């Protein structure tokens, strides 16, 4: 299964992924129209920086899924068809427990509705993540883990050139 994986050393902090994420979660799905929608669309990816490192972070879909366990209303559940953790906005009661337990801080609040939102892997776009498409440096990839690690190993070998 393909995952959203980041090469943080390629992230320049342009926030194009954040913008594309918000647009992907708008009604119109186009930038020029989305900026005028009554309820501003909510981004679910966050470019964090500690000064040395930029990192585009979104829900990691982790297996121990503390958010699922913390959700008392059953709004956050595994979607059995896709194996992805999804939020059912209708069931969310806005207790924000999930926000507190997420180790990545990847769950956010929709201010207007006082409910939570997180990366849904662009369900509306046939699971073709907009953040990945928007990344100008290809810091974000939507790949099989084995492909990602393969290219990581190749990079390592390139670095070894001249060492032996």
């Amino acid at each position, binding site marked *: 299964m393909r995952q959203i994986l980041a090469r943080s050393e390629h992230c320049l902090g*342009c*926030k194009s992924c954040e913008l594309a994420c918000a647009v992907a979660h708008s009604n119109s799905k186009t930038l020029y129209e989305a900026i005028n929608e009554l309820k501003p669309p909510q981004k679910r990816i966050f470019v964090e920086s500690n000064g040395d490192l930029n990192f585009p972070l979104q829900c990691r879909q982790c297996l121990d899924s503390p958010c699922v366990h913390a959700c008392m209303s059953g709004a956050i559940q595994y979607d059995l068809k896709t194996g992805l953790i999804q939020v059912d906005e209708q069931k969310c009661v806005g207790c924000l427990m999930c926000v507190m337990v997420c180790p990545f801080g990847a769950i956010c609040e929709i201010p207007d509705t006082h409910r939570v939102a997180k990366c849904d892997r662009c369900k509306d776009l046939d699971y073709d993540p907009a953040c990945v498409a928007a990344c100008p440096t290809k810091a974000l990839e939507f790949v099989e883990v084995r492909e990602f690690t393969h290219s990581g190993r190749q990079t390592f070998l390139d670095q070894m050139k001249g060492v032996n």
Partner: protein
Amino acid sequence: MKSQKSIDPAVLELLPKAALDGVETVWDRHAAQQPQCGFGSLGVCCRHCLQGPCRIDPFGNGPKTGICGASADVIVTRNLLMHVTTGAAAHVDHAYEVVEALELAAKGEINYNIVDEKKLQQVAKRLGLEITGKSKEELALEVVEVAYADIANHGKKPVQWLMANAPKERIAVWASLGILPRNPDREIREAMHQVTMGMDADPVNLVLATAKQGLVDGYSGLKLATDMQDILFGTPTPVVTEANLGVLKEDHVNLIVHGHVPLLSEKIVYWADKLQEEARLAGAQGILVSGICCSGNEVLMRKGIPLVTNFLAQEIAIVTGAIDAMVVDVQCIMPSLAKVAACYHTEIFTTMPIVKIPGATHIPFTLENADEAAQEIVRKSIASYGRRDPKKVQIPNYKRKIMAGFSVEAIIGALSTVDPVQPLKPLIDNIVNGNILGVVATVGCNNVKVTQDILHVELVKELLKNNVLVVATGCSAHALAKAGLMNSEGTETYAGESLKAVLTAIGQAAGLGAPLPPVLHMGSCVDNSRIGDLVTAIADYLNVDTALLPVAASAPEPQHDKALSIGTWAVTMGITTHLGVVPPVLGSKAVTELLTKGLSDVIGGKFYIETDAKLAAEGLLEDIRAKRKKLGLPN
């Protein structure tokens, strides 16, 4: 994403060849740039100081101001002012060069002549100069003095070129807004100052400054350049030639002029003709000069030189494998040309000190060495012909007959065959009675974000069907020429009934034996001044403000800063100005509102943004009908 790259059949034929030949084109680079930055697209990215770059979150969750405190409104308007100032600077620099040429020509220091004394006198009279008893050289120097005085004006007096040529009603509006320019160079400098960190933070003031740059462009750029060029090279009269890649000749040395200033291209045309014999000795049947962009338009209008193609297909022209040399001067020259040319035998000659491209051959062109440089370029083109690989040659068999050369003088000339006393009367009577619903000027570029030429052509077809007379310049004119909208058959096919009748009557009276074309080619981008002159003359004849006329402008596929500065000038003239590509302003709702609505209360004109050809035509027709209604004319 656009499925089609162009509607031009010649371009579509050559795109697969480009791919086979390993040529990377503007369309490939555009695809590689996707997606383009949303902050930049909305105009909310600021790079004016080293504390930045800053950007505003258009969804309101992130930063609402830049580090200095500039809001989205300020950042958008500051960026817009910078775009428009840059465009104005390009045209003023162009104009300055031709003023210099006229000065040196009048002093006999360079080998250029004062070709059109009548135009010289007309320009001089408008400037209030006494023309009797002066040689053309003396008079030219006096005209040059006025042009130089504008650029050297240290006082508050407005630009004389504007005061002499703009409609009085408009001057009053501009004066009331405090936007009359004094000295083009000073205004450009002031605007560059105004956009620096810690300066203007009032979006309305910044929009007014932008409007002022539109006036700088209109009068110290466009109008000044056209006047000088007509004096030096002649005012265009109707010419018949052809347009599109099919004009290239396999057995000829094909030399392309590309760029904007006719100082060089005129010399190339002259020397190509003189050196035909050398080409024949080299085994060719002769030399064919043809043009891209506005250098092409300039020599088309005055010398009947055929048009090869417009901005977006400048690389594709080289892919024919039949271009022996392309000589460029300034503006709209893709830096990629040298790389494309390297796949073939084509020589790229750069000529100007401010346009050099690694991989191209630089032959410095100055007013003093113009003939030597032009000869060297023509001779090197002939030598290049010998290196042509016939296996790589593919010239698409597409070309259209075109009639061009419609300066205001030429239009009045054609109309005076109907009414010699009041030549504008037949045109205006037909506008008044509704046979001609209105006039739309389509101008400007190609933009790779749009299928090449589609907005120009589809918009204009729709307007013609509704009996709107269209005039065109720049790459818009190229697009319409290639689509067969600049010949008599175009009138038969595309013009509405009443428009067709008028064009047929004028064509018969002028002795063409056929209708005038439905789209009148008025020249290069600086020749938008001719459209300004025409609008000014019509307003003057009717004794109304230009803002009231059933006239609109459109840049269907704008790409360059110059398109924005020309468009801004059109808006200051009180004209609704359509843009078919969204400019980077939507990041500020207030500014977008001001540019597309509010401005019309203040200045009469406004921008109108619509990316669909049909809807844009409807919008422009609605605007024209509203103006007709206000004037009490039938719709």
